[in-house]
């Protein structure tokens, strides 16, 4: 018998073609032997042949059976060997990594940061732009409707639509299998002390048909409960509110819940995770025709107005297209319907000027025509996080390269021993793959814990499930890890292919290496360039944020609370209203820590009021003049300066001569040539008595940070029927700490079911500052990360080069080079890389700056100071990173260095 060990070389049937040949060989041998056997018994050759065939049976059938058996066996063996090989490579890679723990740790950390940053950004982008809302049925055919109209030749597209229009568009179109209306609003929920403003979803009965979400309990409401003039007071609870408020009990059905002004009967509970189209989960969903009364009821002169007029565009419409109807066809159908509805409406601009048009957009608002700043910033941050990942990859590739250099003799030995290059490649790739997967696992941890900060910063009101339970996140991270594994493994693998066996075996440690580090230098330059890019980005956003903070809003944001007065349908006569307002102001002033308080109608960024104005200079004044009626203490409360003249006093009461304070910009605009003080302005109509301008106040920022300040004018509340709906309260310390106290104290003054909501002004302003704060924070975070990675990369390469050049350095020192010269030599090599990085990165930043300019605030994307700071930072880091190995280089002992090898 053959020796056991050589079996492998003979087992050649693994190739399908060889399987057939082996069977042929085996059968031919059999027949040759059989024929010979029968001939030896005296048969003729022909007889022997016949006998052999008779004994064998059907040859062809047997052959095909054997083939199928052997094929499936070959397949099986191949699979086993493949897995075995992989296992072996894996074990080899793990052993190698365990032997170099600090290397492994640095690599995993770098990849964890890179992959973690990307996983976090993916989660946000997925939520904003990719993932359809949960439970949405047939998401690819579901759209939001946007209506466009032209004003002054400029088209504005808006998702807001009136109920009347919604009904008509539904009636006039044929493209849709379902249309629904919805609106989200914060309403007072609950009674007594637990009353709080919470999100309530107003939806049409058809809304539920667009989702594939059977209720967790009870039922949804139907068309018989959702109709004009007023639907039924029934409510479907949101799952988490049901859990937290009602403990998930089944007996909530039939119970009542206070929403807005009225009491609703609970008929069902939406399934877990159901939010409709609003990322903020509602505590309850009510018929839109019922809830509308709670929203507008008090404000409408004619209660039926909301379903008879076309001009109240408050809700949104979403639709499901019939199969085969393209979005374009649906848009055309809608546009026709819209034009028909437009022509029928009571008051409208000529249709050829307004050019009404309708389009269907994504159900994800951020993907529709009106993309918000958040998703724009998020898209940028995706780019930034990708850059961090590229830097991490370059770094890891660099470290792996250094490792491959160090191991090239080992590799050469393996090649010499007959390990095929292909296998070697697979082994090296396995190592980088293992590192990438470990990095990805650590990256998920980074994304889970570290990403929370970012997620709450970007989408503060959205509830985030655990990332580890999110299959999309896991798939993304897995794919990212594979990409990283291939990318980082490529360089060392290519190097291994080039390894010249005999040269590597013959050479000492010092030869054949130094010139190879060109690749590594290039990788370092890339890292440096990208770091500069991110540093410039950081600079631009930090400066933007500082500009925002330095901006004079015209009031003392940190010290002001806004108190909104919610009467909740409670009717009080005007005298009682005035008394209540006076009580509120008095009570607020009496709270320790409160400095002052004032009534108000307008709230910066939230609420503004305008009115017709008339002066002697001009007949009628159009434009955005914003009106506010306030207490005499208003300017002191807000910290808004009176620039000229005086503010209001208690003497400016009802019956006293009417007075006004106007803002500086308004004064300049209305009275460019004359003094504004003492001028006469008529408010509301040109027949009312003159209001005299008695003061000019500082401008305030009230709508957005980028436009010029609004044109504001103020009148005493007492002279304008006291329409106040809120108070500003000035605190001595940080306003947000006083929120609870002020709410509790003021609530005591409120009669019956009415209540107050207290919000720090800071919080009202926050969404307007957020894009810059976010950009600054994220760029700083990612930029710091990039810098750290670049520093580690630079350090490792220079340190490595120093050890590789110790022979050369030894010679230099032996020939009389001073420590200073060696220092300059080594640090110089690090600096050269950094300078190249600065040049390239700065160039890219100059080009990219143009695109980021719209996101900046009063900062030029070419601000030279920012570029200088970024350059100096990178150069400084480069010096620091090369100083440590340089110090080591000066200590090279020529005796040792020259004798080595």
């Amino acid at each position, binding site marked *: 018998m053959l020796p056991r060990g050589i079996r492998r070389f003979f087992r050649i049937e693994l190739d399908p073609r060889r399987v057939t040949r082996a069977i042929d060989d085996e059968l031919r*041998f059999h027949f040759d032997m059989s024929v010979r056997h029968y001939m030896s018994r005296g048969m003729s050759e022909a007889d022997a042949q016949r006998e052999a065939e008779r004994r064998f*049976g059907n040859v062809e059938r047997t052959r095909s059976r054997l083939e199928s058996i052997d094929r499936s066996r070959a397949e099986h063996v191949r699979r086993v060997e493949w897995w075995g090989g992989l296992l072996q490579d894996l074990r080899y890679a793990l052993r190698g990594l365990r032997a170099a723990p600090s290397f492994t740790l640095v690599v995993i950390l770098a990849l964890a940061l890179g992959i973690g940053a990307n996983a976090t950004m993916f989660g946000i982008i997925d939520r904003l732009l990719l993932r359809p809302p949960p439970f949405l049925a047939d998401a690819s055919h579901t759209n939001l409707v946007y209506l466009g109209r032209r004003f002054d030749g400029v088209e504005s597209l808006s998702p807001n639509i009136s109920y009347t229009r919604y009904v008509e568009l539904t009636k006039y179109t044929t493209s849709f299998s379902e249309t629904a209306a919805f609106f989200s609003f914060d309403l007072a929920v609950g009674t007594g002390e637990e009353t709080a403003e919470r999100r309530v979803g107003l939806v049409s009965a058809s809304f539920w048909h667009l989702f594939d979400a059977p209720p967790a309990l009870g039922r949804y409401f139907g068309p018989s409960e959702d109709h004009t003039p007023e639907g039924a007071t029934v409510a479907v609870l949101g799952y988490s509110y049901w859990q937290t408020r009602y403990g998930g009990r089944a007996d909530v059905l039939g119970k009542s819940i206070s929403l807005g002004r009225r009491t609703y009967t609970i008929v069902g509970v939406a399934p877990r995770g159901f939010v409709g189209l609003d990322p903020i989960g509602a505590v309850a969903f009510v018929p839109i025709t019922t809830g509308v009364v709670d929203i507008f009821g008090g404000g409408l002169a004619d209660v039926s107005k909301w379903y008879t007029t076309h001009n109240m565009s408050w809700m949104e419409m979403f639709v499901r297209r019939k199969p085969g109807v393209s979005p374009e066809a649906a848009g055309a159908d809608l546009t026709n319907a819209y034009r028909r509805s437009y022509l029928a409406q009571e008051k409208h601009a000529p249709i050829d000027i307004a050019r009404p048009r309708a389009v269907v957009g994504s159900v994800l608002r951020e993907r529709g025509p009106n993309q918000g700043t958040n998703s724009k910033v998020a898209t940028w941050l995706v780019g930034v996080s990708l850059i961090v990942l590229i830097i991490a990859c370059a770094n890891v590739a660099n470290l792996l390269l250094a490792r491959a250099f160090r191991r090239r003799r080992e590799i050469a030995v393996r090649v010499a021993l007959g390990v095929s290059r292909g296998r070697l490649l697979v082994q090296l790739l396995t190592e980088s793959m293992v590192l990438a997967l470990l990095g990805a696992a650590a990256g998920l941890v980074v994304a889970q814990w570290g990403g929370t900060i970012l997620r709450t910063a970007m989408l503060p009101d959205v509830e985030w499930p655990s990332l580890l339970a999110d299959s999309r996140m896991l798939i993304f991270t897995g794919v990212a890890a594979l990409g990283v594994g291939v990318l980082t493994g490529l360089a060392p693998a290519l190097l291994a292919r080039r390894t010249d066996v005999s040269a590597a075996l013959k050479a000492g440690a010092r030869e054949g290496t130094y010139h190879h580090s060109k690749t590594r230098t290039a990788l370092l330059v890339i890292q440096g360039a990208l770091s500069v890019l991110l540093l410039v980005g950081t600079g631009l956003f930090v400066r933007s944020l500082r500009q925002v903070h330095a901006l004079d809003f015209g009031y003392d944001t940190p010290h002001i609370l806004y108190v909104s007065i919610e009467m909740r349908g409670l009717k009080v006569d005007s005298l009682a209203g005035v008394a209540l307002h006076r009580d509120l102001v008095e009570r607020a002033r009496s709270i320790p820590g409160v400095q002052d308080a004032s009534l108000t109608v307008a709230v910066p960024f939230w609420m503004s009021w305008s009115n017709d104005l008339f002066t002697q200079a001009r007949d009628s004044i159009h434009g955005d003049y914003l009106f506010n009626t306030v207490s005499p203490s208003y300017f002191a409360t807000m910290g808004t300066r009176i620039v000229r003249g005086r503010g209001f006093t208690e003497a400016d009461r009802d019956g006293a001569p009417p007075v006004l304070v106007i803002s500086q910009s308004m004064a300049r605009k209305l009275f460019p040539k004359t003094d504004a003080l003492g001028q006469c302005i008529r408010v509301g109509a040109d027949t009312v008595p003159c209001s005299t301008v008695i003061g000019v106040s500082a401008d305030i920022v009230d709508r957005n940070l980028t436009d010029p300040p609004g044109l504001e004018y103020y009148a005493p509340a007492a002279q304008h029927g006291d329409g106040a709906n809120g108070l500003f309260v000035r605190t001595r310390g940080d306003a947000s700490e006083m929120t609870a106290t002020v709410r509790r104290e003021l609530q005591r003054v409120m009669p019956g079911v009415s209540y107050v909501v207290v919000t720090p002004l800071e919080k009202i302003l926050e969404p307007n500052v957020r894009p810059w704060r976010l950009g600054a924070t994220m760029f700083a975070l990612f930029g710091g990360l990039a810098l750290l990675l670049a520093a580690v990369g630079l350090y490792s390469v220079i340190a490595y080069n120093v050890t590789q050049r110790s022979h050369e350095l030894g010679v230099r020192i032996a020939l009389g080079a001073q420590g200073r010269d060696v220092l300059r030599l080594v640090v110089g090599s690090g600096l050269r890389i950094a300078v190249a990085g600065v040049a390239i990165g700065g160039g890219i930043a100059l080009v990219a700056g143009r695109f980021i300019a719209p996101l900046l605030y009063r900062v030029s994307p070419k601000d030279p100071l920012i570029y200088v700071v970024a350059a100096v930072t990178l150069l400084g880091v480069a010096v620091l990173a090369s100083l440590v190995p340089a110090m080591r280089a000066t200590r090279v002992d020529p005796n040792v260095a020259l004798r080595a090898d």
Partner: protein
Amino acid sequence: MDLDLLQGTLDLLILKTLTWGPMHGYAVARWIGDTTDDDLQIEEGALYTALHRMEKRGWIDSEWGLSENNRKAKYYELTAAGRKQLRSQTDVFTRYARAVFKVLQVA
């Protein structure tokens, strides 16, 4: 004898034959033929099918070697699993044959 051999019986015969040492397919066929004086008249195609199937199951192993007359031949050899299979199948077959005999003797 035109006996429609049960699959298991053929496997059993081959495994038993291979206990004498590695053999190529032709030798297995000859051995069974000679030992039974050709009473069983086994179709040799079925024999090869059985050999390959048992190889796939891991009862026997194969390798190429040189035959007595210096030709390349595929040799089959029992594996440990094959030996185990032979032992258990021998028991089963003996019990089966004994039972059949009992019935035949009563009749």
